[in-house]
């Protein structure tokens, strides 16, 4: 049964008509991190080693970790006193954290005093400190001095960290969400204390993703598909959507979904948000949850053949998702045209795919009309290049897109037209530089 929407070879809206394959990694590429602005287009994908690429050129190869890297965070410090340097902090399963200098590619410092693997790293730019989350939460300054740490929390450790206002951080520890507050200690100027403020136990399963929407709200998603919207200031639950993909919206399809339900299919893999919506990658599908309306406004239940691993919202109402099936798809959030006369909206079949039974579709259509989302996601393009799961991608605006995959490759997808004109520019610059332009006149 294939219900995945497909798009033909003609993709007018797909701007990516040029690609560059970057080889260099020997293993799965899991992370891509943007180090400085789009100007130089650097990417830092990491596995066992660290790499920096600049327009496809390998800048540095960073070796240091002996096990797989579990977290990575760029730390660009603007101390004022020191010259600005771009640092990268990497945490690895070998229970070490290494700070690298991006420009030189050298290892700045290595910390190996952890009791367990550090699973997440967060930089609090404002306070000029960074946090590492493992079985406990540690606070460091940029010189890698341990400022303070919590007591041992759980064996499972902190899986996600997000910065909240008022010097608070939210840490996802298993099913619980713990709010910590950093406060300046009385002893010294550099000293910080970290206090556990609140424990939120609303999730029924492990929290799998945690994202901050704006200063006032943050969102969590769990393995069983719960989505909870929290107030960032008083840490109260603003809204929640539990199993929103079947019961609340489409009760008729529920049994079918239930049959094939597995933890993987319902887990919230990744969350992203803009000001008004939260985009959730749940199982194979993508859901758009509107914060104001507190409901799902658009969804694509089977956006990919297998789990969606990463989604990102583009400024132009587009959404990019990548999946274990090795493909990257570009979606556009479109307003659904209300067609009262027509029982089956045009976008309907598109949305549901063609494989669905007709008798049900008709029924569903009628029900859908009442509580249908006002938007739908239309597939505008797909990028096929990787032969294995696409772990992550990074969107560089008009420069393009970088995808990393388990097939050890990184692919840069670029707008062919734009690249062509850039090359022309480079060509005429070179002509002028060589003085060949004069001869032509």
């Amino acid at each position, binding site marked *: 049964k294939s219900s995945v929407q497909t798009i033909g070879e003609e*993709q007018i809206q797909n701007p990516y008509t040029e690609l560059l*394959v970057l080889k260099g990694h020997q293993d799965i590429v899991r992370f891509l991190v943007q180090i400085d602005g789009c100007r130089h287009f650097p990417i830092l994908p990491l596995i066992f080693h660290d790499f920096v690429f600049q327009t496809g050129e390998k800048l540095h190869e960073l070796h240091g970790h002996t096990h797989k890297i579990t977290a990575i965070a760029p730390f660009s410090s603007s101390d004022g006193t020191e010259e600005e340097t771009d640092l990268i902090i990497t945490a690895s399963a070998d229970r070490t954290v290494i700070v690298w200098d991006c420009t030189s590619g050298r290892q700045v410092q290595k910390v190996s005093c952890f009791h367990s693997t550090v699973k997440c790293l967060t930089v609090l730019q404002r306070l000029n400190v960074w946090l590492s989350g493992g079985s406990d939460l540690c606070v460091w300054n940029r010189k890698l001095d341990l400022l303070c740490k919590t007591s041992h929390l759980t064996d499972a450790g902190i899986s996600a960290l997000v910065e909240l206002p008022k010097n608070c951080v939210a840490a996802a520890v298993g099913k619980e969400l713990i709010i910590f507050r950093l406060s300046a200690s009385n002893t010294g100027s550099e000293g910080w204390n970290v206090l556990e403020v609140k424990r939120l136990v609303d999730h029924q399963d492990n929290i799998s993703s945690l994202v901050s929407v704006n200063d006032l709200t943050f969102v969590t998603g769990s393995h069983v598909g719960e989505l909870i919207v929290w107030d960032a200031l008083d840490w109260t639950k603003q809204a929640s959507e539990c199993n929103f993909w079947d019961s609340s919206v489409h009760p008729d399809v529920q049994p079918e979904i239930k049959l094939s339900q597995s933890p993987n299919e319902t887990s919230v893999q990744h969350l992203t948000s803009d000001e008004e919506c939260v985009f959730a990658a749940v199982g194979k599908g993508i859901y758009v949850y509107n914060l104001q309306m507190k409901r799902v406004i658009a969804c694509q239940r089977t956006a990919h053949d297998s789990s969606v691993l990463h989604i990102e919202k583009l400024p132009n109402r587009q959404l990019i998702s990548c999946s274990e099936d090795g493909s990257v798809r570009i979606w556009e959030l479109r307003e659904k045209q209300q067609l009262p006369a027509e029982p089956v909206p045009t976008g309907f079949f598109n949305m549901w795919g063609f494989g669905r039974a007709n008798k049900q579709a008709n029924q569903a259509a009628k029900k859908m009309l009442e509580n249908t989302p006002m938007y739908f996601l239309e597939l505008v393009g797909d990028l096929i290049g990787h032969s294995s799961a696409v772990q992550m991608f990074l969107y560089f605006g008009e420069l393009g897109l970088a995808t990393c995959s388990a097939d050890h490759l990184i*692919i840069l997808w670029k707008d062919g037209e734009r690249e062509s004109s850039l090359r*022309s*520019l480079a060509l*005429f610059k*070179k002509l002028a530089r060589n003085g060949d332009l004069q001869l032509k006149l």
Partner: protein
Amino acid sequence: MISAPDVVAFTREEELEDDLYREPPLPEEYSVPLFPFAGQGANPWAKVAGSKFTRDFILISEFSEQVGPQPLLTIPDDAKVSGTFDLNYFSLRIMSVDYQASFVGHPPGSAYPKLNFVEDSKVVLGDSKEGAFAYVHHLTLYDLEARGFVRPFCMAYISADEHKIMQQFQELSAEFSKASECLKTGNRKAFANELEKKLKDLDYTRTVLHNETEQQKKANDKGYYTTQAIEKANELASVEKSIIEHQDLLRQIRSYPYRKLKESEFHPYEPECALDRADVGNDQDLTASDPAEPGETHLYTHMPSYTPKLIKAKSAKCFDKKLKTLKELCDVYFFTQTLDQLHHIERTFRGDVCYLLTEQISRALLKQQSVTNFLFEDVSFLDEKPPEKQYRDCQGLSQDAIDEKCSEESLAPKVVISLGSYKSSVECVPIKMEQEMEDSEEPKMSESVMSEHQENLDYLDADIKGSISSGESIEVLGTEKSGSGLTKSESQASLPVIPSPQAGRSKVGSRRTVSEDSIEVLSTCPSESLIPEDFKASYPSAINEEPYVDDDEGGLRFTPRLNPGVDDGQDDISKQESLVQVDAACCIGKESPSFLEPLPELGQKLREEDGVVRIPPQPYRPAEQGLRGGFPSHDGLSGGLLPYELDSRYLTGSREVSKSSLDECSDSMSYISSAASTCSDRTPSPAHLACAAGERHRKRAGQNALRFIRQYPFAHPAIYSLLSGRTLVVLGEDEAMVKKLVTALSIFVPNCGVYAKPVKHWVTSPLHLVDFQKWKLIGLQRTVSPAGVNVLHALSRYSRYLSILDADSKTLRCPLYKGTVVARLADHRTQIKRGSTYYMHVQSILTQLCSKAFLFTFCHHLHLPISEREPEESVVNRRINFLKLQLGLANEDIKIVQYLAELLKLHYIQEPGQGGNPLLRFDYVPSFLYKI
């Protein structure tokens, strides 16, 4: 492109001839006169008809001091080649023009005999009786036992086609210089060995004599010397003198300037070859060590096993003595190297001259297209040059460009002078302008280099014929001297500078914009317009005013002068011209007596006379003459076309012209010779580097491609895929069939860089995205095994990047093509039969595409806004309009040019050091399935 030999095939049809005779005869005035030599089975273009040998060959002969001139060997070593041609007679001829005045002996003021490292002389001569024309390369080898230590030899390239000799003079000269250099190197080595042996002998003799003298002294207690003792003492003294002399000779031969060898591209010393040939039967010392070691001072290292002999006081220089063979003179290794080189020469210059010329021209043109030639051509043979210069070269030869080149590339002070004076000569009309003029006046002329070239042939031809008609059986058409001097001779300074009254006119005419003008140029001096003012004026007299003009041996010496701007311009168009100029210059020698009094008022007359000499007397070239007559003649030149009696002065000159002293040449180091020598040194003939393998490959690929386009109705979209950079996968079970298809299609694949074509002939594993980035044409194995399923799965997954040609089921899955370019490229009803012809056809159309892509890429406003406020859309519109209207491209053809333009851009902006990641560009276009 249909070359002449294709047409020749039709003329040979014998039945056709028979039919012609059976038909009622046409009235006399309508009948086409038959080619006079048609009966001998020759084509009408061949001039072989009158000759007694079947094809070109190389002759080595020696002026033996015992028996006079004698032929030594021919290449190819086949009696059939020379046929009835009298080698002995011809040897006599070619050796008689030798003027080796290599003086070895005691020069005044020197105590010891002095070796002169004489330069080779290069002469072109014709023998109308034998129908033979020859490039003759004289060289001198050293032999201790020979008279004056020297043995004159010559190598001659003998052909029935004088055009070939004249036009390929530079190439022949360069190639034969290599052979000669090889011979001489071996000879120096052998000579040094010989000297060492001789020294040992002398040493031994001295010891013996010394002992004898001592014994006599002891035996003799009378207090006075006996006559016997005095004789012994004298003998001892002469031996000691001889030792000193020989040591000096050895020192001289070792001090030969080896740097010259290092400069040349030809290195005959390959150690592995040396080892291979070490066992070739020889009776000589065969040390494989590098002989080119000037620093070696130890005398007796080479011959540890040599046992010295006693030398008689009087060495016998008699006729019963057997002279050394050439092989013995030159060391077996070097001798075989030389033979290889000569065989190479024979191979490369084999065949009709039109092939050679076509190849040279196309190479020259190709080198010019330095920006685009990597796309479809095999550029491996082109010299690496800095990119900016390459680009400049293709900008056309503006005056400035030449000036810059002069200053850049010539380090000699002479050039600086010439640059200044050149600039000061106001009359100089820029070449570029002339070319434009030419364009406007005579579009036909400027159409191709070939036509211009052909024009020049005529003049040469006329020149030769003019002298041949004098009744002389042998005329020296010209000599070339490759001296290495740079400074001008002192005699120059004393010469009055004679302003040329023709300066202004000849300037215009000197670039041969109009055919008649070139007559002028040839008659005065080659490339006059580019010769600095002071040289120009003194040039004619300089020929006569050499200080040794009254010397019997000296005589008249002529060496062609190339203009400095183009003497190394192998890669630009002017090279073709300069070649011709040199060739032309070779013929000038015989006329130079007319410059004995180059009075200003005489200028006009001389000019006319010279023009007259070039009237082609041969009757079988009416068409070309007609063509030439059609051109607007330059003022004052109408007389140049009239028949004219030859001035007797020309004849007198022709006898003496060859008599030139090499020593004097190298000593005086005339500025004239410098240009020529640098030219010949630096000009490795590019045409001869063509490897036969590439030729064969081309032929086969062309044949396969022809078969492909005839066999597959969907050849067009397949070729379009290749041209637009979409990877084409040829899928099939049979490896041979797939490879054949890949070979056929590979001629349509544009190169991404200067490396090999992005073609993979045979792959068995599943394809990956990286493969499409690297390869644009892939032969893929289809198997039924599970692995084969993976292969097909990968194909369907990446189908958007691919066109798939299924060789088994004869289907093609690829985007639609509606353009026109490919239809011209691959017309299945084409009349072309031969693979190589089709290959040329493809190349020409692809070259057109390349030029379009070049225009598109390098038009500034097509890619960048004219003003800052101009929106991007208008630039895009302009671009599209240009492609559609200016370049006349339709539909998908635009994509082809755009793709080629991208490749050009990438190639151009790529920094030399960087490898550069290959990009994969693609389009989201639907594919269609084509079936037979």
